[in-house]
């Protein structure tokens, strides 16, 4: 084994890339859960976004159109969830699972003709001057656009929830939907919008995997990233900045185990591949002690007649 082959700077740089997909999906789910809805379909929406983005980008040759299509595809699938849970008042857990099962099937159906295709490359965005800083420059400031978009999204969601009236209303709906309804807020409409936003984010996260991180399409390629995004929301105690922290922690574990595999550590590769999931479980256990942060109406069905 050659641990010297692992370059800590490269590790830090690839950590940011490894964290981006789950970070974007998780911050979207955070908004959904803040509105009091538990959408377990993140994995399904991510894989749908991955194939929609891949198909659009491969067809048009433009990664940007790909990302737009991914957001659209994710939101479209989320619309189904919104119809089920907000209009047909179906159980949220079951509907979320339905979304994942359906999304996995639909994506492999669409993806059949895209196996082996190479997507158009997404250019790295070398921020002038900043990326020229020795050591830190290449690590922090010469990534693709989506890495910075993810960071900006976390900041925007944080600011929206903390400083805007819309954020306040969203949180009110999530904490006590009956009271929010009594005050005249359109609970269902707000929740549908939150669900669509979450779907778009999950779609973008999925497309990040298929277009940039592993630039190809393989069936089921999200491999549980959606579930890890769900776990990140719990880890973050429903706070946007902690999503960032959690995503980097998770990204770090993922990148480190890949590097250890490459360096030929004596542990078989399969056991190293388990580690991100095991760490996620561990983190869930540690964070579960404090459930007070969860929105009070999370997962409960709202109907105006009740």
């Amino acid at each position, binding site marked *: 084994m050659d641990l010297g082959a692992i370059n800590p700077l490269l590790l830090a740089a690839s950590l940011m890339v490894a964290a981006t997909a789950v970070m974007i999906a998780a911050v979207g789910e955070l908004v959904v859960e803040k509105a009091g809805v538990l959408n377990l379909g993140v994995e399904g929406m991510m894989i749908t976004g991955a194939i929609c983005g891949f198909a659009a980008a491969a067809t048009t040759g433009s990664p940007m159109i790909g990302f737009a299509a991914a957001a659209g595809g994710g939101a479209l699938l989320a619309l189904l969830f919104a119809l089920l849970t907000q209009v047909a008042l179906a159980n949220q857990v079951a509907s979320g*699972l339905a979304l994942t099962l359906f999304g996995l099937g639909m994506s492999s159906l669409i993806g059949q003709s895209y196996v082996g295709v190479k997507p158009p490359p997404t250019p790295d965005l070398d921020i002038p001057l900043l990326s020229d800083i020795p050591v830190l420059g290449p690590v922090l400031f010469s990534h693709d656009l989506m890495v910075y978009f993810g960071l900006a999204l976390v900041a925007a969601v944080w600011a929206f929830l903390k400083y805007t009236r819309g954020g306040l209303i969203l949180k009110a709906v999530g904490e006590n939907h009956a009271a929010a309804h009594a005050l005249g807020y359109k609970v269902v409409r707000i929740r549908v919008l939150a669900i669509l936003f979450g779907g778009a984010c999950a779609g973008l996260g999925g497309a990040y995997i298929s277009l940039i991180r592993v630039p190809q399409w393989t069936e089921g390629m999200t491999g549980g990233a959606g579930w890890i995004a769900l*776990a990140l929301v719990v880890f973050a105690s429903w706070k946007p900045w902690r999503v960032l922290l959690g995503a980097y922690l998770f990204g770090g574990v993922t990148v480190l185990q890949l590097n250890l595999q490459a360096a030929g550590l004596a542990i078989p590769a399969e056991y190293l591949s388990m580690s991100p999931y095991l760490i996620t479980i561990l983190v869930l256990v540690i964070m579960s002690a404090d459930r007070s942060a969860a929105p009070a109406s999370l997962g409960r069905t709202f109907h105006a007649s009740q």
Partner: protein
Amino acid sequence: MLRLEKRPQPSRTLSYVTPVLAVLITMVAGGLLFALLGKDPVAAIRTIFWDPLFGEFAFYYRPQLLVKGGPLILIALGLSLGFKAGIWNIGAEGQYIMGAIAGAGVGLAFYPLEAWWLFPLMVIAGALGGWAWAMIPALLKVRFGTNEILVSLMLVYVAENFLASMAIGAMKNPEGFGFPGSRNLQQYPSAHNAEIIAGTGMHWGVAAAFIAAIMAYVLMNRHILGYQIRLTGDAPRAAKFSGVKPARLVLFCLGTAGALAGLAGFFEVAGPAGQITTGFNVGYGFTAIIVAFLGRLHPFGIVLAGLLMALTYIGGEAAQSTMQLPAAAIQVFQGMLLFFLLAVDLLTNFRVRLDKREAA
């Protein structure tokens, strides 16, 4: 203006009608999907739902119905107990894998011993393997309040990696010329889960599924534990006041589901699959979730739903070979079924009223 009015009680009649309705809507929507793929929708639906049962080659397909339905029913029965009480075990796929590894592991450890007690021992090991894997989310939930949905799901990915390491490592066939995968248990009489009646598809796993269905029915309707499960699902606070211990219920529901999924995995690996290979699991653990809901979480409903879902697998394979229908289309079909089922459930719990004028 359409208005929803909550029924004082869910309609019993409709709760039986809605699954059938969902299947019919899925057939229509599925037909549209097949038409979009450029296939004759009527022929596709007939190939999937009619031909395997009554067509020319039905003699070949009918036994497959039990082979595919058995594991689905077994897993779904276990899941339904938890779902009824609001305990969401989504990781049956992982418990299925670990049961298969534990059961097959015992058999392989004794190779080439021939003894009557080997198979029963493997059955127990299979159940214990699934049970132990399900105990991880159960104990974490009881002890730390950890979300069982996420933990059981994470453990599926852990189990898949573990399966891969077994198939190319500890359990690899020493006479397999270096190919990944264990010895074939079908060629090891003491460990083989053979058909009970040759040519019917009826193996011990299917028998176990039917026995489990009867036991689940008795448990839910004649036993205090079943009553406590239903009460916890309907009114958790009332359940607590009447002395139901939530922790015990979590351990029981997850443990039973894990043991049944483990059994299903073992019977599959010792029977139809034959050997531990990297991708030996085919997603029964996830499809069983649909089966549980389609069967209305009722043991006998689950048996019917399991057979129906098995039919979509078999018919789907037939449609793949005769009509070049993509394999993923069936997965989409199954996903749609769950969607429509959840959507038409609205009718069971609510009355749709037509108002002349919009009332406040």
